[in-house]
């Protein structure tokens, strides 16, 4: 049989197969080789045809481009093009004989676990009675060392217990965000700007008078590996929550949402609380090549059942990772998501109502989390994964204040503010406002007030 006839036969078989194959379902609908391109495709062998018609190729090249290539290439060009794509596809997945499957560590290192060793009690230099303590010399004025909201400092769980602490604000300075970095400087920048603990304009409640709040320092991280950071942060969050204090975590990049929520779940139980997550990014990467990252944080929480999809509410989605596939996946998990498209279309008031109804119907307790990317860059230019056309700071703080006043809060987290990116420090001020919104909400609830309560003095000057 000469090569010509082999080719012809192959072509005929291929054409036949191609005609039999059902159209390919893609994220944007169906794709099947358009009739006018089937002749061109007939030069491909079975394997090549299968690669094209199975839709596997669409991961590497959009269908518009594929159709263009099919229409314009000659037989040789098309064959080598498809071969190249196939060898590309073959190299995509892990091969233990070619690829590093795990980054090695120095198992001989004397300080292998240096980053996760709190000092045991007998080695602490100074003896003191447990309880939160002030770092300030004066009764009213602050004297130098910056703490969150000027709050007292606590270092050990026994300090939280002795002080009957309601809220422990904690830095988690992980610095491995997938956008621009420097979130590791977030906690200290927020400490250095004294705008937390301001009174609530609506109820006139002063959070630091209504609540026992401490700066619980920062949990340590391994700056070279989020993987090695996660367990320690999880343990420390669980320990903190175990004292009865609400951990309010200040990131750090958004990978820290995973140990934050997981630690709280270890104390309060998996699936016992809802998650209200403000972010431009879905963070539900399902097929990532790492085991933890900001892009995977929510996926891990849902996948491991730490929070239920039906009790998860996402607000402000618009980032580059939001595609039809992702939204479909969120739907399949019963996540209540509210994209910026919904907010634009229906108006924020309407979406807020809907969201609060979902919160009301949800469990008694909530974990509230804010990736600062949810806020528009005009008001939050220091977002590590900045995305234009976001929510107004006032809308975000209003929603958070309400939920923190209406529900039992088991944890709060603000992530991915990279101070270096904002010379004006406005982003720090707004990050503090976000944290304060929840702090105030918790205080309003503790004071026994309705979330919607407005102090008459705040509402009206009363003059006729």
């Amino acid at each position, binding site marked *: 049989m000469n090569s010509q006839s082999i080719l012809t036969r192959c072509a005929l078989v291929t054409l036949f197969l191609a005609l039999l194959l059902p159209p390919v379902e893609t994220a944007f609908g169906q794709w099947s080789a358009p009739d006018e391109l089937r002749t061109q495709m007939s030069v491909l062998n079975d394997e090549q045809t299968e690669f094209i018609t199975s839709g596997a190729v669409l991961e590497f090249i959009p269908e518009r481009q594929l159709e263009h290539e099919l229409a314009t290439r000659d037989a040789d060009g098309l064959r080598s093009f498809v071969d*190249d794509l196939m060898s590309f596809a073959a190299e995509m997945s892990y091969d*233990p004989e070619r690829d590093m499957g*795990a980054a090695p560590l120095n198992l001989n290192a*004397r300080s292998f676990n240096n980053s996760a060793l709190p000092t045991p009690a007998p*080695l602490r230099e100074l003896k003191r009675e447990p309880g939160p303590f002030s770092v300030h010399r004066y009764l009213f004025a602050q004297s130098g060392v910056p703490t969150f909201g000027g709050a007292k400092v606590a270092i050990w769980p026994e300090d939280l217990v002795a002080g009957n602490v309601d809220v422990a604000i904690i830095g988690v300075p992980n610095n491995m965000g997938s956008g621009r970095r420097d979130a590791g400087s977030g906690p200290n920048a927020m400490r250095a700007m004294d705008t937390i603990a301001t009174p609530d304009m609506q109820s006139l409640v002063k959070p630091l008078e209504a609540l026992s709040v401490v700066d619980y320092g920062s949990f340590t991280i391994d700056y*070279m590996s989020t993987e090695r950071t996660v367990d320690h942060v999880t343990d420390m969050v669980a320990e903190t929550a175990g004292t009865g204090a609400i951990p309010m975590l200040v990131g750090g990049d958004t990978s820290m949402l995973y140990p934050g929520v997981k630690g709280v779940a270890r104390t309060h139980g998996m699936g016992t609380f809802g998650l209200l997550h403000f972010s431009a990014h879905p963070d539900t990467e399902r097929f990532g090549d790492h085991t933890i990252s900001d892009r995977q944080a929510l996926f891990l929480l849902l996948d491991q059942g730490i929070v239920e999809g039906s009790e998860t509410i996402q607000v402000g989605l618009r980032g580059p990772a939001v595609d039809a596939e992702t939204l479909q996946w969120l739907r399949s998990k019963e996540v209540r998501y509210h994209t910026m498209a919904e907010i634009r279309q229906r108006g924020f008031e309407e979406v807020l109502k809907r969201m609060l109804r979902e919160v009301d119907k949800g469990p008694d307790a909530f974990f509230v989390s804010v990736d600062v990317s949810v806020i528009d860059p005009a008001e939050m230019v220091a977002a590590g994964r900045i995305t234009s056309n976001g929510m107004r700071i006032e809308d975000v703080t209003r929603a958070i204040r309400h939920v923190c006043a209406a529900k039992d809060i088991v944890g709060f987290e603000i992530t991915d503010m990279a101070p270096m990116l904002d010379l004006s420090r406005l982003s720090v001020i707004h990050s503090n406002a976000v944290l304060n919104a929840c702090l105030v909400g918790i205080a309003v609830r503790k004071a026994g007030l309705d979330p919607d309560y407005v102090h008459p003095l705040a509402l009206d000057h009363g003059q006729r």
Partner: protein
Amino acid sequence: MTIDSFELRAAKPVVATTMVAILLAPVTWAQDDTVQTPEYVVGEQAYPFDTNDPRVKDKPPIELPDSVAPKLNLLTAEESEFLKSGAARRFAGSAEDTVEALEERTPEEVKAWVNAMQDVVANNRYTEGRDLPNIPLNTESPRFNAWRLQRPRSMDPEREPGPLPLGRYGGYGGPPTFGRFAIALSQEDLVAGEVDVAILGAPLNMGSGWRDSGAQATIDLRLFSWGMGGSDQYALIKPSEVLTIVDYGDVAVDNSSTERSMQHVRKIVREVAETGAIPMIVGGDHSLEYPNVAALADVYGKEKVSVIHFDSHYDAWWGEESHLINHGYPVYRLINEGHVRGADYIQVGLRSGGLDKSAFNWMREIGMRYHNMAEVEVRGWDAVIDRVVAEASEEGRKLHISFDIDVLDPAFAVATGTPVPGGMTMREAITIVRRLCAETNVVGFDLVELHPALDPTYKTTLNSSYIIKACLTGLAMNKEGLTTVHYLSPLSSEHATDDYYGDQQKYLDATEAEKEPEE
């Protein structure tokens, strides 16, 4: 190191042999057959080189006076021994401090105190079953290698191999490239274009100081590259006319794992060096020195390349902590893996804190030549520059220059992850870099730790661009044979219309000698 010695170290010789076979495959083209060691980990293997750092030592043990014996009543022999051992010194301090601490404590408290120290020491060590032995990746991911897979050439319209100018006007007017040079995307392009210098970015973003040194640096340097590609007044030479220089694009890095990025950077740098072109790598953090130099060793042979490390930090940390690479470790890792001899390292501009006597003693022991700012304070820059260039020129050795911009004073380079005041000026830096690239046998260059977001004036980016230009100038001088000690153009360095310095004739003669026939 040979294959045999590797096998002795490996836990499973069969696996090791397989690994060697696999790893040999991509390096069979190497000119020197010393490239036989498995250079990186595949699968979930452990790191194949020794990880014991001989510099990590406990302090000497102490003796305790009999007077404190009653305090030690409750200790077991082992606990008592521990308290006196070197390992306990980092908690209990000197003999005097220890006695004082014992006197303050009851025997019960002493026991708790010692047990706490033992716990910390034990907990700090890797323990199988408790600690992760490595940093796992998600090997199930169908997109596992998506970060580093290269675009098949057939996806773009066919073109001849060779440097590709992006602009419409004599090569200008396109998207910004390093020095406005043409781009090259593959080894084929480098060979076809007979490229002398390939500038490539490596946007690694894992430094320990202010992060974000990576992605923005390689792009911003392209924006600020008008200086990089221009002519040089000191030597009256235009690098781009003497040399074929290309922008080789950015290397893919995984900014969630330095270790994982290293091998790919090494592969691409090797790809450049193999063609005989000089790779100039723009970082990214200083971890990159490791794959850059390792790649040169792959091509030119182990212990055949010397390195000048410009930095305010010595970057030879290692062994104390769990990671095997970060931007403070590249020097030690290169030496440990046998790519470079310690004696072939020259350090310039060191001044950071953290280095103690043992670090300097170690450098002296292995013959590393260090030129700290303290030496500059004693001898002055001119003398130090002469000495460094002389050392770097010894035996015509092949040289890689690793230029961490924090060697510069923060007045000139504030946009860097870990700045340290008291550094070099740009004038000094331009001189030494130009001289090294002209007078020695440079085979590689990197500029790292640029972090544009920290400098809204863009000054640091501009200065970085001019450091690269100084080297391009030197390389062009080298190619033109202008390699005499501290060559400067006799025409641009002296107007010679009078005899002010008493050497007018010398300059006139030199100018005459350099005249090209058509002038």
